[in-house]
């Protein structure tokens, strides 16, 4: 199977990324509506749980926006792969952005975990179990991804350096 170029695996992945972008955007819009609802509740009741919901969903929105940013960066990379542009500095910049975004996402999920842990007594056991497991897993996952992509980016930078050296060796 062809991996690079037009009508290849990378072009199909690009289509998948467009779909994922649309899906996450829709979820984000849904969460925005929940935030508006909690803001309305805060204005009416001013309860602690409403504030908790507001902070939690705001962080979730941020993670969604970061996910969209990561997808856009991957779109750029796969667009270059589709056009057979493999070793360009633009790709390293995108990968660097992805790695920093992943680390930022890990921090956001860590904050979510702490928030839920702080509200342990006020929430139902089932909710805590699912959300805490989910947020801790994502914290570890994004941290590992962030570090991994950063290392890959450094390797990619070296590859570009070697390619340039080879191109300019007469």
């Amino acid at each position, binding site marked *: 199977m062809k991996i690079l170029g037009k009508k290849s695996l990378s072009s199909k992945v690009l289509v998948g990324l467009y779909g994922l972008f649309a899906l996450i955007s829709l979820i984000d819009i849904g969460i925005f509506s929940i935030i508006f609802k909690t803001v309305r509740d805060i204005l009416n009741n001013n309860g602690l749980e409403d504030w908790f919901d507001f902070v939690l969903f705001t962080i979730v929105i941020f993670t969604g926006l970061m996910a969209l940013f990561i997808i856009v960066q991957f779109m750029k990379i796969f667009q270059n792969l589709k056009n057979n542009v493999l070793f360009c500095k633009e790709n390293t910049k995108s990968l660097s952005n992805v790695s920093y975004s992943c680390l930022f996402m890990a921090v956001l999920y860590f904050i979510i975990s702490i928030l839920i842990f702080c509200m342990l007594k006020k929430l139902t056991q089932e909710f805590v179990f699912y959300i805490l497991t989910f947020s801790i897993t994502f914290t570890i996952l994004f941290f590992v991804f962030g570090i991994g992509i950063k290392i890959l980016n450094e390797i990619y930078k070296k590859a570009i350096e070697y390619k340039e050296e080879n191109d300019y*060796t*007469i």
Partner: protein
Amino acid sequence: MAIIVNVDVMLAKRKMSSNELAEKVGITPANLSILKTNKAKAIRFSTLDKICEVLDCKPGDILDYQK
């Protein structure tokens, strides 16, 4: 880089065109242009050998070092 390539000077002395040198050495005119404009990162001994052979000179006549 402190290494300067003086192919232009030797070409003028031998009254040879760049295209002719590129053809005789067996490199593309684009690569010769990279060499002349000091953009090259390295030069193979085989290429240097060919250039010296065609221009009838020593490597020191083509390459110079400036601080």
